[in-house]
């Protein structure tokens, strides 16, 4: 229902530049996630879209209209806060009615006592109660309408906050880490529900999170932010498979991607910790970083001497998978490798085995942290 376009957004608090020129086009009906470590400016950017914070430079446009000078309440956006920000003195029904009352009832109709005398008010109230009831049914909170926020669990409050955002049928939803106050199981559950809700409403969602798993699981596109800039923007699978920056590769994916120093020789042949790679890179001899995800390592418990000698020091059991933590060559390079439960039971801790990278899975980053592509063979 709304296209949001950001052009050259900058923001500084005093001397500190928090946002350094953000350009971002959010398509109508898209679920876009802003993800990054705390302090990267993602919440500030969301608040700038909402209008709760003014940008130092650049333009915010909603459906082609520049809204820099439009106050938040007139931008027709809804926001879900990390703290939920429910009005604690109002019950759920009243909380959800509030945006409708403020929009649909005139100043005098909202006036205590006097407002009740105005004609037409009863019909408006009936209409907004019906709207609240409808949203309450969608979110399955109909039985909670009479309760105060203090009497609700975290998950229920979360739903009420969502409901309050939904009743008004805004052009876009802005969500500021809405799941971070929930327990782990509920968070996973709400992830699926939010994605479903997005499909059902078809509205534009801008979602801020520091949790890369939320970004990967829910969004159509995600923007990875670090230190006030967007390092990479793309579909979750693309960003996971094809990170353009070392920091993106490190931030996205759990457990973290394995990084090790490597050398490229004059011919562009890469050798990492004694293991040569078949593919070559352009450019002369230089130090590079090799990155490889835990699931792209093959374990070899036999006599083979291909790959790196790896000594597992800890096994992490996740049920379906095991993660083996250990180090290479008895040295300082720490690695994590994924193993199936069957493989993992056969591997004793402290005994050296061999691991090797799957063909085509390794990523290279230069000294400037940018991605270096292998030449096509």
């Amino acid at each position, binding site marked *: 229902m709304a296209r949001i376009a950001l052009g050259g957004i900058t923001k500084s608090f005093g001397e500190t530049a928090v946002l350094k020129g953000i350009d971002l086009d959010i398509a109508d009906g898209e679920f876009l996630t802003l993800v990054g470590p705390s302090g990267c400016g993602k919440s500030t950017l969301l608040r700038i879209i909402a209008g*709760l914070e003014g940008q130092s430079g650049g333009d915010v446009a909603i459906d082609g209209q520049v809204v820099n000078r439009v106050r938040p*309440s007139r931008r027709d956006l809804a*926001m879900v*806060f990390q703290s939920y920000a429910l*009005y*604690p003195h109002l019950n759920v029904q009243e909380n959800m009615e509030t*945006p409708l009352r403020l929009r649909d009832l005139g100043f005098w109709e909202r006036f205590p006592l006097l407002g009740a005398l105005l004609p037409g008010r009863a019909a408006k109230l009936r209409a907004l109660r019906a709207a609240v009831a409808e949203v309450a049914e969608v979110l399955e909170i109909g039985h909670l309408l009479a309760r105060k926020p203090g009497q609700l669990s975290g998950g229920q409050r979360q739903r009420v906050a969502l409901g309050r955002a939904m009743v008004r049928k805004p052009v876009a939803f802005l969500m500021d880490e809405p799941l971070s106050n929930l327990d782990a199981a509920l968070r996973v559950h709400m992830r699926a529900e939010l994605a479903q809700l997005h499909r059902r409403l078809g509205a534009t969602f801008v979602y801020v999170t520091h949790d890369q798993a939320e970004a990967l699981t829910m969004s159509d596109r995600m923007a990875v932010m670090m230190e006030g800039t967007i390092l990479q923007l793309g579909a979750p699978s693309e960003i996971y498979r094809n990170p353009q920056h070392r920091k993106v590769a490190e931030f996205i994916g759990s457990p973290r991607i394995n990084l090790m120093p490597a050398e490229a020789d004059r011919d562009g042949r890469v050798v990492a910790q004694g293991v040569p790679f078949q593919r070559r890179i352009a450019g002369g001899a230089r130090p590079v970083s090799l990155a490889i995800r835990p699931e792209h390592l093959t374990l070899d418990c036999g006599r083979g001497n291909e790959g790196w000698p790896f000594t597992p020091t800890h096994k992490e059991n996740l049920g379906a998978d095991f993660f083996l933590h250990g180090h290479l060559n008895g040295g300082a390079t720490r690695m994590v490798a994924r193993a199936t439960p069957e493989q993992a039971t056969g591997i004793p801790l402290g005994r050296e085995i061999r691991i090797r990278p799957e063909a085509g899975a390794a990523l290279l980053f230069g000294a400037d942290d940018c991605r270096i592509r292998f030449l096509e063979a």
Partner: protein
Amino acid sequence: MALAEVAAPPAAARRDGMGRQGIGARGIGPGAAGYWFAAPAVLLMVVILILPVGIAALLSFTDYSLGNDGADWVGTANYERMVGSSTYTRMLWATATYVLVVVPVSIALGLGAALLINSLRRFGDVYKTIYFLPVMAALLAMAIVWEFSLHPTLGIVNDTLASFCGTGIEKVFGFFADGCARNFPLWFGDKDYAIWAVCFIGIWQAFGFNMVLYLAGLTGVHRDLYHAAEMDGAARAWDRFRLVTWPMLGPTTVFVVTITTIRSFQVFDTVESITQGGPAKTTFVMMYAIYEKAIKQNLIGMGAAITVVFLLFVLLLTLVQRHVVEKRVHYA
């Protein structure tokens, strides 16, 4: 409020003691230990709170004077005099006027000042200091300053008012017409103005304190709530005030109302130092009445009777306030 709060801890202590069987197992019976733990608090409360109030209540039915060997039981004679005599009717009027004017006005001003200061980016501390100065100053000393300022012939107030004479303002306001033609009010000497002048000093002195309490309350209002209100469409300051600020300040307001009311009932310094209850008993507030009857005229019985009535008012207030708190105020 004060009474209720003091009464609570011993009751709770006793309940705890009852729960722990076996502590008092040395033949005193179960639960006895609890009473021993509660005893010091109960004893102190009886000695310094209940006993004096009880004695005052007893004295209010006698004609006791300090120095007398005994006193005669006069029944409800002291109370009947309070209902019958015009002096005491005026006492109740003066007290009621003072409380009903000072409480709402000083709270409204305190809240207004707090909201304004809170919205300032700079100079907030300067205003805080200025408005809080009257609270820190001794009211007795300040009362003397106001007495001079409001002096009919020497005071700066009437001088200032008189300086407007001849500017045409007397044609607009009857007040100036009278003032310029004859003289401006005598303030503390005029029975139509005295109580209002006393109220004015009370407000001037009390609102800074209320402002500080409200400022403290405002720091506790979550910023996200204002943002949520703004996103929900509360574009007017009034909407945000009604939706967020006022409800969130509920607990502060309860405290401010209670404190200000009790302090207003207790007004004494201004009256004692400036008007001594006059003119024509229009500023004869309860505290001053107790002082005049019991201390100056040594009519302890009468003084005790006024004290009991005073306590009843405060108690009534406490009950109403507790009722309101439980019903209406939201504690997050």
